[in-house]
């Protein structure tokens, strides 16, 4: 076992407007009644997403593209699309870097 090439399914995800993000397996977003807040459960950790992060994560449904997500949020907050777009892509890129968000089209079924 010394091959070092990553299997095709696992390639660094570069988040762009046409990416279709979805939560990775092993990553669960749920509302926690005991603490009255949303939590993101990942291996070995519990993350506490803020309101806007929760909204973005909920939109990562494996069908919407990043462009759709940005459009949706820009409309919902009546905010400039550019600004929202930069924030959304930065956040998703970080999540992808940690492996919590993956590209839906290439994800293993």
């Amino acid at each position, binding site marked *: *076992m010394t091959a*070092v090439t990553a299997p095709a399914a*696992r*390639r660094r995800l570069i988040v762009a407007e046409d990416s279709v993000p979805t939560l990775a397996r092993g990553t669960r977003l749920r509302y926690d009644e005991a*603490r009255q807040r949303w939590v993101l459960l990942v291996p070995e950790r519990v993350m*506490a997403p803020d309101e806007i*992060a929760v909204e973005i994560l909920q939109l990562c449904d494996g069908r919407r593209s990043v462009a759709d997500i940005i459009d949706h949020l820009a409309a919902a907050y009546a905010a400039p699309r550019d600004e929202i777009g930069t924030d959304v892509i930065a*956040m998703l890129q970080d999540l992808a*870097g940690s*492996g919590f968000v993956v590209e839906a089209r290439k994800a293993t079924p």
Partner: protein
Amino acid sequence: MSPTLLDTSPVFADPTDGLAILEEKSVAESYGIPLAVLLELTHRCPLQCGYCSNPIEMERAGNELSTEEWKKVLTELAEIGVLQVHFSGGEPTVRKDLAELIQHATDLGLYSNLITSAVLLTREKLAALADAGLCHIQISFQGNEPELANRIAGFKGHSKKLEAAGWARELGLPLTVNAVMHRQNLHQLPGMIDMAVALDADRIEVANVQYYGWALKNRAALMPTIAQIDDTTRIVEEASERLRGILDIDYVVPDYYADRPKKCMGGWGRQFFNITPAGKVLPCHAAETITELDFESVRSNHSIAWIWQNSDAFNRYRGTGWMPEPCQSCAFKELDFGGCRCQAFALTGSAGNTDPACSLSPRHHEIFRTAEAESATGTNRYIYRNFAGGTLEPEQQEV
């Protein structure tokens, strides 16, 4: 009194804006709702790793909690707000009711993780666990080359582990490779990272051995050299950069060689606890090594919530009030909570002392010198973990 999380604002913000690791603000005397619990279903294990943190006095099968008892434990955990459960051991897959317990956790909305050596798995068994809702699997590897890996484990299991990792991926289970590192396998770390990539793992956890239980008995055979630790840091940093987005690398620095101790368990009795095969509730998996403490059991008439809030073992070292100097007046006391109680007990004879891993501990230099000496001249022969009290590895196997 029901547990309340005093303040959910995080101390350690994640680089991701708006997404932080959930941890209550550092209020010295406070504790919140526990986040995660380690369930040691059994001490039985076909492997005999000398680095095992299980106590030397292991629990026999007859004393293990029954299926119904474990289910009740899971129900109580979900009720008090625990979010994650780690099924561990020993080897948790020796329990025939594992799938049933995972299913119960799933039904309760708990995030379940399996920590296994994988040598007893078949594809069918693993598929049943996945169907029961298992969220994540961690497979331990002792090396990346079979001969050494099998020698360390005292069991020919390496090729089976590789096979099981493959099944995990076929079944779509997220996979972490647990790489437990020490003097005799640190040279294989680059190979183990490559192996994790080739296995299509999501994460690798590079953990240096912690010296409790069996591992303390084997310290001379395990203690890494300073040069190895420097190499490790370099290897991990380089690989983390290169594999960003491909393989997540978690690295736990060995605290014998650090200036400050690790924040053990996120602080005693603050976020985590552990349940032993016979149902004792411990603030940390090695806490039974502290012979001056008594632990409550889930078999008593107390609820787990009561034990978490009121038991002496949890409250004794909670917060910072118990701390002696140099901790008491130290600026770091709410960052590391004085380090590890088990290590303080093992190395100084009292769990209430500053962890000698801290360079400010009066015992630090003496212990550091011992570690250094052991890393240079210690024997390579393991004392294998077993119910017979340990077996010394035969001489001819020395490398």
